[in-house]
């Protein structure tokens, strides 16, 4: 693994982060309406004060100057102040971020551990009954919108069977094992909803990737050396087939975070997704911008990780 490759990837990530910040700021700047509208409707604040505030915050400056100010502030960790919660946006986001990362991470682990065996088994015997059933279910999984799966799971497991709670609670008053048990119990449905949607896509990726690799000559060589079929698949085929899948998993992440927003909203998980929706419904612009920027950073970060992993898994890439 050469260092040059990692540095090059890092240097590519920076302009894309800058570009994203330009796009986000551009959307905000183009948007009609005034950030001080809240003050305009407030009778206690005279118009002169509002104008002075406008001048102070540089709202009458040219766009590029406002962008530079905004960007400099974001870089220094000054993300603004939430109108609604009355605390700093970065603190608010940091409070909520771990929950989202845990839910998304757990659902990815679930999706990967379901999808890889199923995809490999389907590809080893293409067009068999198992393959057809797996492909059909993968298609169903990837056509089911997360909000509908979530509601159906609530209907079955919370309302009909009464096994699982459908509201995620952060304030569980239990200690020790009971605390963790409750947490796991209430996380099952959000994680499953998000994981299954992801697994459908991954099964299709994995299947086609294994199908590509399994025809290669080195697999035939391995077989002709008398290595058992099981070992050929696990040690020789799957390892190489996983390489493109790693990239595809990272490229899917924008969609996963989108799914997380919906899932958090349905199950009322206190993550940044539900924070985004709540902020939108409460017209809390600093929080909306902050959360969107965090999502963008996460996507760029995971793309970077995937690129570096890809170079590590497939050394041919990093020497190009």
């Amino acid at each position: 693994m050469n260092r040059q490759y990692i540095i090059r990837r890092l240097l590519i990530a920076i302009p894309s982060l800058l570009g994203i910040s330009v796009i986000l700021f551009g959307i905000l700047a183009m948007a009609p309406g005034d950030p001080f509208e809240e003050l305009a409707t407030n009778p206690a604040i005279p118009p002169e004060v509002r104008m002075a505030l406008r001048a102070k915050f540089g709202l009458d400056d040219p766009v590029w100057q406002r962008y530079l100010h905004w960007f400099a502030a974001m870089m220094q960790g000054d993300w603004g102040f939430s109108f609604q919660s009355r605390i700093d946006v970065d603190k608010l986001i940091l409070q909520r971020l771990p929950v989202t990362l845990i839910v998304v991470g757990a659902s990815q682990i679930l999706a990967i551990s379901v999808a890889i065996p199923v995809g490999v088994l389907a590809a080893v015997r293409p067009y068999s009954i198992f393959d057809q059933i797996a492909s059909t279910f993968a298609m169903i999984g990837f056509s089911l919108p997360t909000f509908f799966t979530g509601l159906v799971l609530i209907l079955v497991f919370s309302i009909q069977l009464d096994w699982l709670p459908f509201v995620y609670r952060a304030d569980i008053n239990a200690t020790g094992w009971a605390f963790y048990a409750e947490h796991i119990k209430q996380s099952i449905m959000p994680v499953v909803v998000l994981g299954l949607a992801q697994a459908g896509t991954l099964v299709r990726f994995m299947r086609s990737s294994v199908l590509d690799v399994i025809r290669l000559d080195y697999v035939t060589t391995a077989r002709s050396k008398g290595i058992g079929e099981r070992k050929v698949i696990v040690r020789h085929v799957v390892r190489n087939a996983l390489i493109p899948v790693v990239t595809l998993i990272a490229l899917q992440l924008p969609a996963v975070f989108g799914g997380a927003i919906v899932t958090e909203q349905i199950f009322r998980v206190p993550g940044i997704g539900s924070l985004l929706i709540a902020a939108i419904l409460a017209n809390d612009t600093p929080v909306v911008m902050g959360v969107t920027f965090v999502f963008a950073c996460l996507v760029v970060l995971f793309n970077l990780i995937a690129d570096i992993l890809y170079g590590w898994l497939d050394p041919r890439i990093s020497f190009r």
Partner: protein
Amino acid sequence: MAGSTPASLSAEAPVQAPAVAAAQARKARSISPALETWRRFRRHVLAVTGAVVLLILVLAVLVGPYLWPVAINDIDFAAKLQGPSLAHPLGTDDLGQDLLARMMYGGRISLAVGFAAMLVALTVGVLVGSVAGMSSGWVDAFLMWLTDLFLALPTLPVLLLVMYLFRDSMKKVMGVEGGAFILIVVVIGALRWMPVARLVRAQFLSLREKEFVEAARALGASKVRQVVQHILPNALGPVIVVGTIDVAAAIIFESTLSFLGLGFPSDVPTWGSMLRDAKDYLDIAAHWALFPGAAIFLTVLAINFIGDGLRDAFDPRRVL
């Protein structure tokens, strides 16, 4: 299609009387690419089923309101939250409004958004992809950087951000329903063109070096003519496949937005907003959520299967 497999075409016609065989051969020679694709598409049972289901759904939402002329906002508190009955085949909601009528109305919106957003995405994608594919150097590099940048945007958060910032002013300019429609279509299209652009560019890079394009160039065809007459028609197959999948994705995005309360205003029934309203009544009126959810799922699944069938039909390497 370039390089489609006539082997399977002749394999279809067994030995026949010479005259018939000659007629068959004449017919076979004049077979158009579209007809050939259709012939291959027909072999894909699930895709044909999907096409039939989609056709029924489209007919239902287009013709249905004439056969079931119940107003979508006919409030009847005496019949609220009722399950399916003869008077209300799909039951009623919390205001006693007829769900069948609202489903048909919402279906029109969902399908229209899906197709319109797909057209926007395809237009932008084909334009960017063909410009990048025909020009080399910095134009190509810049357009591809832009494409990668948009690919790194977190789709749903950005979609929510734009809807949040622009919804009210669009409502003023275009009216409640029209404003939301145009905004949703444009934004979904603007966030979905990137795969199309990459695909078109890749196709162009290989096609523009092919002999038939060189021949056209040698005959003095202008660049526009080379693209429109020779390259684009040959690059269209995969683009149609991606376009099909895009319809499904746009329908899911629209329902997600409406489900989160940021799509169409809540008095306009779409499948997503019906689910949003229904989710608080899951325990007493499950049908209210299940019908629109199932409609979204069925539509998306049908379209995805059609896309799968088209992919196989357009793949010249595959003998069907």
